[in-house]
């Protein structure tokens, strides 16, 4: 049970393993999608979760929202344990924790009208009497700046960006507290991305929302999130405030990611780290390398990296958040165990032997 008032979501040592091949003895093969993640998400913030394929970021999202049951570990939402599948969760939790999926052409039923789609959450949770339904749906559409007559259209009749706005409208229909956004703009063209993001930003202000924003696009993160966490093969490698993160990326994987981003201007090139030639492919989460899972591609791999999985280290120097009453002062280089990683605001945590 958690007693920290500013924390909306607490994830503690979450693991989600999928059984791939059942073998006798202890030899069963598992896909370790999420392998010991601990995170806090504070009220009103946007926490970005970044990773490539196999990183487990989507699995974290799906587990938090209740599509999967955790293999071990806990998830606390507003202080209550919710680490079970969605069916078993209390109504209020379902109302207050919602998700927006990546591809609006598959997350909206193409054969239903938008009006009906938006009605459902209102009906199911009994929030609105029947006669006011149409009015409420119109209000929802207005909230995302879509014309009310859209409620008579079917999703395929409108554009991709508008569909995603409908998807967002559906998610906020129950006035949730936390919205999980799984790559909300990855399936969309650049010319509509901005609208979606700016709408999300406005909604956050107007409705007092918090976001868990999942993406692979670091440039997007820079402009959207308050804090960023990088995932690789089911574990977090680095987590920090956005400013600190981009000014001083620490983990070799983070640097590799940043250096690979194609940019469109010279200013960005200056800010981008030197291109790191990554050798080889991303290992599969079925076959995670021992020790530090990134060592197979790391240009700085040392002997110890092959043997031991590094612990988290906080490398914040000057700035300390005043209301961080649990650990008192920030210490440069002091090793702190994973469980207390929760207090990550104002800190810059990295999990790498170079900083141990």
């Amino acid at each position, binding site marked *: 049970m958690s007693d920290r008032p500013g924390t909306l979501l607490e994830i503690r040592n979450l693991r989600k393993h999928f059984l791939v091949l059942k073998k006798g003895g202890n030899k069963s093969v598992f896909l370790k999608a999420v392998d010991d993640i601990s995170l806090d998400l504070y009220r009103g913030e946007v926490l970005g979760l970044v990773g490539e394929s196999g990183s487990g970021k989507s699995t974290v999202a799906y587990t938090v*929202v*209740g*599509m999967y049951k955790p293999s071990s570990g806990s998830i606390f939402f507003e202080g209550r344990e919710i680490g079970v599948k*969605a*069916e078993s969760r209390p*109504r209020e939790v*379902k109302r207050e924790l*919602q*998700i927006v*999926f990546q*591809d609006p052409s*598959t*997350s*909206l*039923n*193409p*054969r*239903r009208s938008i009006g009906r789609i938006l009605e*459902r*959450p209102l009906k*199911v*949770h009994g929030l609105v009497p029947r006669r006011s339904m149409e009015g409420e749906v119109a209000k929802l559409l207005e909230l995302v700046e879509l014309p009310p007559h859209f409620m008579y259209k079917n999703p395929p009749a409108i554009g991709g960006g508008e569909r995603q706005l409908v998807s967002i409208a*559906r998610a906020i229909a129950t006035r949730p507290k936390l919205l999980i956004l799984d790559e909300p703009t990855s399936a969309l063209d650049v010319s509509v991305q901005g609208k979606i993001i700016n709408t999300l930003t406005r909604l956050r202000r107007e409705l007092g929302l918090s976001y868990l924003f999942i993406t692979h696009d670091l440039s997007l993160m820079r402009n959207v999130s308050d804090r960023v966490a990088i995932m690789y093969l089911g574990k977090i490698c680095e987590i920090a405030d956005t400013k600190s993160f981009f000014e001083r990326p620490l983990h070799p994987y983070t640097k590799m990611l940043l250096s690979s981003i194609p940019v469109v201007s010279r200013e960005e090139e200056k800010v981008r780290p030197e291109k790191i030639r990554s050798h080889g492919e991303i290992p599969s989460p079925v076959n995670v390398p021992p020790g530090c899972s990134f060592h197979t591609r790391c240009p700085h791999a040392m002997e110890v990296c092959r043997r031991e999985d590094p612990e988290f280290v906080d490398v914040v120097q000057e700035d300390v958040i005043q209301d961080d009453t649990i650990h008192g002062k920030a210490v440069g280089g002091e090793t702190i165990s994973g469980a207390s990683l929760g207090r990550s605001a104002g800190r810059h945590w990295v999990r790498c032997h170079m900083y141990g």
Partner: protein
Amino acid sequence: MGEAAGRYWYKFSRKKLSVAGLAVILLVVFASIFAPLIVPYPEHAGPFVDLIRGSTTPSRAHLFGTDLYGRDILSRVVFAFRPALLIGIVVLSIVVPIGTVIGLIAGYHVGHLSDTVLMRITDIFLGLPPLILALAVSAVLTPSLFNSMVAVSIAFWPWYARLVYSMVSSVRNEYYVRSAELIGESVPHILFREILPNCVSPIFTKITLDFGWVIILSASLSFVGLGEQPPAPALGTMVAEGARYLPDHWWEAVFPALAIVLIVLSFNIMGDGVRDMLASEEV
């Protein structure tokens, strides 16, 4: 609304053959509805005997010739369209809803007990050849048109269950279904409002093709005397009776057989058009 109809017609009519099939079927339906008004000898469809004109070759007066009782074969064939189409409509009206519901439930609960139970039962029925099954059921019940419908229905429902099952088990993993589950929708809502509308296209195509199959199955039953009883005309019965007089009085068997072939073929060809019509457009 007119826009949608026009679009469907456009897609359907890309192949001339589909349109031809549709035309034939419409003709058959029309003929069966207005049979008493358009056939040359409507009374020959009932008890009628005129042995003097028995087994006459096709001529101006009797385009398809007469059978051994002197009844005009053309008139009887047209009247025989009625039970044929009726069986199709009745059987499919029973079989499609039942098979679909079973397929929906089993497909939604893939991997669970209900899936296993329902689909194994379906498999058992699928394992028995439809004709044998229909014959067995008919033989137990008294031969009549109604009972042959029952028999054919029992033989047919598993095919729809199987089709819907395979569609549903993939559609149920789509994100819009997951979204509905996460919102907390009831299972009936998910089955009938979210999943089913996205599965209907292959069902309609199958219905069109199955019309032909049902007709053949019922013709087979009446061929062995288990369907519509004489003297009411039925295509299978007419073929059976006429077969005895091959090859001399060939017209008694051949024309009813050709009618069966024509109808079934037309449904099949039309089925292609229906499939094209329901296919999604992609540029």
